[in-house]
């Protein structure tokens, strides 16, 4: 375990060194220095504007995750429990999942207008499909012997879902939720970059238009750290659930 930790540190140090060298090579108006960027990130965190944008992004992200996960799980459960419906829907879901959803944002904007709702809707169409696909497969892949055991024990349908199906399917569903949350964040940020009036993505595009390199790097760094933190948290949860199950 120990040497692995050191490897991580080496990696981080190497990354910072490359960044610094790149900065020295191409200059501060293209790549800002790591130290400057960190200082700017800290000062952003202290300012009120940043938190206004972060709250705007956070609210949209939260709602989109809730709707996407709930909707995706319901859809996946419905399609997973019926073999026929699952067979019919499987390739359709796969195709819809693979199209670049950014192209659909103008349609969302035409429907909902330039609003929080549009942002949430765009996040939802990103997140709902991976959750639905993983849930569907999780329910379909529950070993037949588990179902037969439930039948042999004469469990009620409710008890079957709670004590047999759920524990067997939840680890896989959690993988879907992890991916769903990641792409929902991507969706919200792309929506803000393309057209919005507040949010971290909006701050990022404003910094780009003002050619404020250090702001761009600081915001990117903060978003990066936020995404990594969420992903790590979900990974840990997933691992715990897998151990318990």
């Amino acid at each position: 375990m120990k040497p692995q930790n050191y490897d991580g540190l080496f990696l981080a140090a190497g990354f910072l060194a490359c960044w610094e060298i790149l900065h020295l090579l191409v200059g501060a108006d293209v790549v800002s220095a790591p130290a400057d960027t960190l200082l700017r990130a800290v000062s952003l965190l202290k300012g009120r504007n940043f938190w206004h944008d972060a709250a705007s992004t956070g609210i949209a992200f939260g709602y989109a995750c809730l709707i996407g996960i709930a909707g995706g799980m319901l859809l996946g459960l419905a399609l997973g429990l019926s073999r026929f419906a699952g067979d019919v829907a499987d390739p359709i879901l796969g195709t819809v999942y693979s199209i670049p959803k950014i192209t659909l944002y103008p349609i969302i904007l035409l429907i909902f207008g330039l609003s929080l709702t549009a942002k949430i809707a765009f996040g939802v169409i990103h997140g709902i499909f991976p959750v639905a696909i993983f849930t569907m497969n999780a329910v379909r892949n529950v070993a037949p012997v588990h179902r037969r055991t439930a039948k042999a024990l004469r469990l009620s349908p409710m008890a079957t879902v709670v004590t047999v199906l759920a524990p067997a399917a939840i680890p896989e569903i959690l993988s879907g939720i992890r991916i769903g949350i990641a792409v929902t964040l991507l969706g919200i940020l792309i929506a803000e970059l393309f057209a919005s009036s507040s949010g971290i993505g909006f701050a990022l595009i404003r910094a780009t238009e003002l050619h404020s390199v250090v702001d761009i790097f600081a915001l990117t760094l903060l978003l990066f750290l936020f995404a990594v933190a969420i992903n790590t948290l979900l990974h840990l949860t997933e691992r715990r659930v897998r151990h318990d199950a």
Partner: protein
Amino acid sequence: MNLRLTKVGLARTAVVIGAFAALEILCRTAVIPRATMIPPTEIAVALWQILVSGKANSDIAFTIVNTLAAIALSIVLGFWLGAALHAVPRARRAFEPLLSAYYAVPVFIFYPVLIVAFGVGRSALIAMGAMFGIVAMIVNTMIGLDRVPRVIAKTATVMRLSPLRRLLLLRLPAAAPHLVTGVKLAVAYSVIGIVAGEFILATAGIGKRIAFGYQDFDNRTMYGMLLLLLILVMVVNGGLSHWEKRLHRRFGQQ
């Protein structure tokens, strides 16, 4: 089995056609106003007119050339990086968490950084597309090389092949099914990166045309180009999925 398959296929066709028919009716009866969406049949006609007039040809070519460049970059670099990491387990262990978390980070947030570095234009878009695609290729290359049967490595030793020939002549074909999975994902991700880039800030391209149509209230152009993009993506994706399935079947599950 066969009967069931056709039944599933029929139901699927019915679902898709039904969805389009419902959309058509909703648009025709103005439940969905024209300002929001034009009927699907009109979208098809609009696309046909755009293609015949040739006014979007340069944008279409711009996007296709950039996408091909990004795909080529991510596949070639991704394969070599994947092979290199596979050869050095220690480096691989260090990079593994980074690679597995990569797609959890909205990589697209680096686009402004790329614009600062390359300026608005082809290079920034190609770099964005390659950044999206390359990690899928790296990861799948490593998975593919992991699954190469030991007997093939032994054969290489018996034949005294150099490491490079061993990689290219034996392990590359043996890992082919997983490499195709990597290629499929790299293509899908590169397209997303490039079209998203064109949407946000670019000088030309299909994505730029769609965004421009939206800002101009030009629904015929917007929906027409959207349809074109969806058709292109579905055809390429369907073709690659088909190829992938065939390879997996041929090489069996190892």
